[in-house]
């Protein structure tokens, strides 16, 4: 005897063991004793039969017809599917073991019956487990692959949607910022004058709170080939490059720049015609200019 429970203590617990009413630790101790005690094994078997009979005391309880039929239908569907799998596996095993059958040898295959020898049954059962297991594995794998593809598609779609949302959000924020740059409390507006034959018009909006500059112009002619327009912020001591731009084909211009500048240092805003890439300093007379007040 290797366990710590005496035979007497174990035998006194067999009734509770048969009822499955022992705590886990005590149950383990009793089972350890029973495993090595033939007398307790016999006693436990008899008590378990008594325990099993107790279920007979429960009164039959009728089920609602719909519930009764529902369960029955599910059971028969499951059993039918189970039988079909078993028959298919059995047929496949027969086919594999006997090789290709000639038409005259084709017989109706039936599910295994109890009359088979134990070893044949066990062998077939092992085959069934393997085949059913493989079928389950393949099925699970297909489902997994399908789910993975769906997940990737969903993630891609989600990514596209997120990108679209981000783009819209950025656009919205940009528009908000632009509106603020054009209409804020600290926005100075300068009207651009021009001597050009096309009489372009324009306004420079200087959002002093955000150091943001927005030039909006109309009817600006397309510069000649190899040329571009360049925006200048003019102070009493310097002409500061604020970037180059090209008008749209319809002559519309919207140029935005960010540059810090003391409020009282701006003298004028000018646009000149310059070589592509811009110039360090203006090389032509302004085609549009606005004087700061």
């Amino acid at each position, binding site marked *: 005897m290797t366990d710590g429970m005496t035979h007497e203590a174990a035998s006194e617990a067999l009734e509770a063991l048969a009822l*499955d009413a022992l705590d886990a630790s005590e149950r383990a101790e009793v089972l350890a004793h029973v495993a090595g005690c033939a007398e307790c094994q016999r006693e436990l078997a008899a008590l378990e*039969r008594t325990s099993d009979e107790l279920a*007979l005391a*429960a*009164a039959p309880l009728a*089920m609602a017809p719909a519930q009764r039929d529902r369960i029955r239908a599910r*059971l*028969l569907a499951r059993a039918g599917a189970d039988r079909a799998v*078993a028959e298919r596996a059995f047929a496949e095993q027969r086919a594999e073991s006997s090789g290709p059958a000639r038409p005259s040898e084709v017989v109706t295959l039936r599910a295994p019956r109890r009359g088979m020898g134990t070893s044949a049954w066990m062998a077939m059962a092992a085959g069934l487990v393997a085949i059913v297991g493989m079928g389950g594995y393949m099925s699970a794998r297909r489902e997994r692959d399908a789910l993975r593809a769906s997940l990737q598609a969903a993630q891609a779609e989600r990514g596209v949607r997120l990108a679209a949302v981000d783009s819209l959000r950025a656009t919205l924020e940009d528009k908000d910022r632009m509106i603020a740059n054009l209409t804020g409390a600290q926005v100075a507006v300068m009207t651009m004058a021009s001597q050009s034959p096309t009489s372009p018009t324009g306004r420079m909006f200087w959002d002093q709170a955000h150091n943001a500059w927005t030039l909006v112009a109309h009817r600006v002619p397309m510069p000649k080939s190899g040329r571009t327009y360049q925006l200048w912020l003019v102070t009493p001591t310097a002409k500061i490059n604020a970037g180059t731009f090209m008008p749209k084909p319809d002559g519309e211009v919207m140029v935005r720049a960010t540059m810090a500048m003391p409020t009282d240092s701006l003298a004028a805003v000018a646009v000149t015609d310059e070589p592509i890439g811009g110039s360090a300093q203006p090389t032509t007379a302004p085609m549009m200019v606005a004087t700061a007040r």
Partner: protein
Amino acid sequence: MRDVVLVREMASGDDRALGTLYDRWHAVVHGVVARVLRQPDDIEDVVEETFWQAWRQASRFDPARGAVQTWLLTIARSRALDRARALRRRRESPIEGDDGEVVVEQAAASDPGLDAEATERRQIVTAALSQLPAEQRQALELGYYGGLSQSEIAERTGQPLGTVKTRMRLAMQKLRSQLQILHSEGGP
């Protein structure tokens, strides 16, 4: 067709036999499961799983070890207790089922849905149970249908653990004696 024949047919893959067995025993199985569980969904699941397990394990049924009815009800009780214990672990709440009241009923002269043999078997068991002192029956039922351990029964009833153990042991010994007829040759 006798139950053992139905089970043999089930073992050979005859799902019609399963249908017949279900028609014959669903109310009895339902009665056992409903003694352990209370939620209709749980009960329905466990009734189905009971017959499904019978289908899958039909080839292992040994008529020498007991009647088909007993086998089915043992499966039903086991599955129901599994479900009840799982629910208890999840909810950290007392196990479903009877709260200690003694609910053994006298079997009717004939139970609807039971054939004569099954009715007689049930009468024998309920008669044996009814002869137990109430406190022994309570300990037995809390363990059997409630799935409670002896220490849990002691806690539930406020009785010393040693008392619960003694009551349960005495109850089982008496029942074992009373139910011998079910296992004897020519018994019901």
